[in-house]
């Protein structure tokens, strides 16, 4: 934590500096300490967006539940969705109403918190059943966002919808993509700069990836920024200032591809999005390039696997940093970016923390895109470091894939961590990362592009990483760039996390345990066996009675749980893009079934 002002000045040896400069320096340091840190947002006990706040801390300031009393947590009420696919959404809580988005058919339930289990209304968008054929990784949906009386979310068949939060009536519905191009939508939108920000899925279908901003009142598309193509399509203009030379140049979204391959190059926008209202920048990363077989697409393949900072009103890019050029492991760039103001080497820096698929925690200056550190939070052999001067990832040649067979690739395609979001506690200063420990073997095959069908060209088998556990919950110190403690899990820790002011971290496991850990040391405080594996995002809110509640959706599925939600056959280890090889025992531990669980102290 921060030094006393006097100690700081003494260490800096400012005694010799003229008084006026010393005074200015003192004022600067003082202001730095006093300026509200972006991670310390006011908390009214509601949950209006999946990531809790635009900084994406997933931190609840409620402190009724503590490390001392968490062992007394009891089930308060439940609600069944009646669906058997993967439930990934974060519930929202606004004005004593809870909003749940289900997997396909993407029903929106408004639940009355003053009358547990009762629904106020239901909104059914009736997405096309055929759209289930374009979802790479189960027909999931990661949730909605509330803004000025409306709930916004995406349907699998490419509609962004706005629903009146009080009446449940549809306000508008905008078609954003085409299933016959292999597009679908699963991501949770955010609202920034008066725009609903949404992106497509389909990196496994050779889509032309994009992120778009729609008017909240009308659903009119204001801007759409593609991930590949000329600068005019990527919305790169005169304001664009990438930090590293490797990311500078005109029309790199065309030049780093061969011929027209960028048009089916992926870079989809199924991303987590954060927003800094002072800098007026949204931050998100693009997906993997298509096809997975990298030998089919020579070049750096910009701007796939790239972190973008854009203006939310216009979509114009301010900076970009390509994390994995010419990706050959399916290391999508879509994971969360937690915005933090941290003291690093004695200076307060506006940073973002991005735990990437490639297994590294990127700490970056969110004003400029400079990488400050990129240390591994999982076992990594596909790269050995990131050159902080050039920004280049130093890949391990022996683990590069293409038209050949490569074994023991770590991390496997789902990465050190997939979409499952981490959280940050301003009290402990730690990031709580739910993640994977998986390696894989990959063999490239020729991929044929047929619009609307998978465009992959890779046979994969995954298996546990070193140690045998397939997942873990790790507490990470972003400043020291080191893990502090880690709890191993039998299966990948595929749920989200929430951390509270009571110093409790909540997450769920794929074999159906919803757990509370002590945020300081990882000690297990409490656990509850829910009806199906958990891949949802837990939240914590203040109920109408003033009590603190914790809620999570159970219902296994997703890419990792496909063997159960899809009834897959483990005789073929390549099933579910190789995940089945690593999860053949999951059916012994869990069946399907979507259910909301809400817990509180008695």
């Amino acid at each position, binding site marked *: 934590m921060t030094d006393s002002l006097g100690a700081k000045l003494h260490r800096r040896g400012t005694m010799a500096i003229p008084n006026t400069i010393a005074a200015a320096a003192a004022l600067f340091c003082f202001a730095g300490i006093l300026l509200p840190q972006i991670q310390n947002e006011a908390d009214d006990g509601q949950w209006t967006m999946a990531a809790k706040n635009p900084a994406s801390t997933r931190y609840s300031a409620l402190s009724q539940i503590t490390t001392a009393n968490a062992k007394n947590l009891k089930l308060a009420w439940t609600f069944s969705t009646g669906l058997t696919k993967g439930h990934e959404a974060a519930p929202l809580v606004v004005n004593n109403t809870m909003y749940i988005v289900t997997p396909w058919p993407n029903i929106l339930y408004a639940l009355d918190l003053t009358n547990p289990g009762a629904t106020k209304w239901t909104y059914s968008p009736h997405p096309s*059943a*055929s*759209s*289930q*054929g*374009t*979802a*790479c990784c189960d027909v999931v949906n990661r949730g909605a966002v509330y803004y000025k009386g409306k709930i916004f979310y995406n349907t699998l068949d490419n509609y962004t919808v706005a629903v009146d939060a009080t009446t449940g009536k549809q306000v508008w519905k905008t078609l954003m993509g085409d299933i016959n191009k292999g597009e679908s939508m699963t991501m949770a939108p955010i609202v920034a700069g008066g725009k609903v920000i949404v992106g497509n899925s389909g990196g*496994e279908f050779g889509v032309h990836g994009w992120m778009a901003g729609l008017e909240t009142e009308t659903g009119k598309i204001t801007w759409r920024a593609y991930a590949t193509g000329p600068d005019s399509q990527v919305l790169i203009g005169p304001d664009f200032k990438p930090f590293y030379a490797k990311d500078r140049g005109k029309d790199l979204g065309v030049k780093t591809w061969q011929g027209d391959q960028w048009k089916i190059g992926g870079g989809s926008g199924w991303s987590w999005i954060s927003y800094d209202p002072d800098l007026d920048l949204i931050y998100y990363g693009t997906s993997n390039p298509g096809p997975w077989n990298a030998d089919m697409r020579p070049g750096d393949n910009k701007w796939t696997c790239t972190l973008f900072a854009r203006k939310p009103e216009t979509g114009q890019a301010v900076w970009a940093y390509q994390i994995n050029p010419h990706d050959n492991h399916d290391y999508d760039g879509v994971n969360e970016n937690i915005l933090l103001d941290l003291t690093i080497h004695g200076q307060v820096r506006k940073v973002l923390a991005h735990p990437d698929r490639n297994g590294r925690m990127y700490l970056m200056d969110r004003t400029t895109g400079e990488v400050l550190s990129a240390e591994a939070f999982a076992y990594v052999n596909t790269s050995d470091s990131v050159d902080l001067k050039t920004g280049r990832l130093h890949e391990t040649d022996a683990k590069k894939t293409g038209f050949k*067979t490569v074994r023991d690739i770590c991390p496997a395609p789902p990465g050190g961590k997939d979409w499952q979001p981490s959280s940050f506690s301003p009290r402990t200063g730690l990031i709580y990362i739910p993640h994977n420990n998986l390696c894989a*073997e*990959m*063999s490239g*095959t020729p991929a*044929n592009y*047929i619009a*609307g*069908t*998978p*465009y*992959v060209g890779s*046979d994969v*088998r995954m*298996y*546990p990483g070193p140690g045998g556990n*397939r997942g873990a919950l790790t507490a990470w110190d972003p400043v020291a760039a080191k893990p502090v403690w880690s709890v191993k899990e039998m299966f990948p820790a595929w749920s989200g996390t929430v951390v509270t002011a009571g110093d409790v971290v909540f997450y769920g496991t794929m074999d159906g345990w919803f757990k509370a850990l002590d945020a300081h040391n990882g000690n297990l405080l409490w656990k509850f066996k829910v009806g199906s594996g958990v891949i949802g995002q837990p939240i914590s809110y203040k109920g109408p009675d003033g009590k603190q509640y914790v809620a999570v959706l159970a219902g296994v599925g997703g890419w990792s749980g*496909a063997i159960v939600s*899809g*009834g*897959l*056959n*483990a*005789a*073929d*280890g*390549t*099933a*579910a*893009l190789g995940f*089945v*090889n*690593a*999860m*053949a*025992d999951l059916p012994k531990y869990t069946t399907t079934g979507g259910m909301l669980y809400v817990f509180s102290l008695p």
Partner: protein
Amino acid sequence: MSSRYLRVAGVFFSLLGVACQREERDLRPAPTRLAMPGPAARESLLQPGGPQETLTPVNPAEGNGYAISEGQRLFNAYNCSGCHSHGGGGIGPPLIKDVWIYGNDPAVLFDTIVKGRPNGMPSWGGRLPEYEIWQIVAYIRSLNNLEPKSVTPTRSDSIEQNSHTLTPPPEPKPQ
């Protein structure tokens, strides 16, 4: 030649013809005859008024080694493996299984591919020649041990299963 030799020769050559059906190769298939959605195959055992005589198309690729080998090639080339992997499933359901949603008769499989199915199976009608669809149908049936062993591929074209990587490892077979 004496008539006796001719008769023996005739019997000999006709026997050869019967035994080589599995080795036959149609050298002039009709590539332009595309399979179009049309009259349906029955998919229900419920037939109001009692069961009726049904004319079911015969799979010309049934029991044919070359056709099933082609089916394996086309299964990958047309991205069937993109959704169904090598029989285990993924985006789509497995194709190695006991319980089939719509049935696994050749005519029903043919229909599934041509018409598509409501929950995500694309409709390939109008895109693929009929003879190729029959080859893929025969390959799918071979995955389920519904074709003679002599014409069933012994492994997929993909990276071979290393059983030591399957998690958990398969139970050792009783001796």
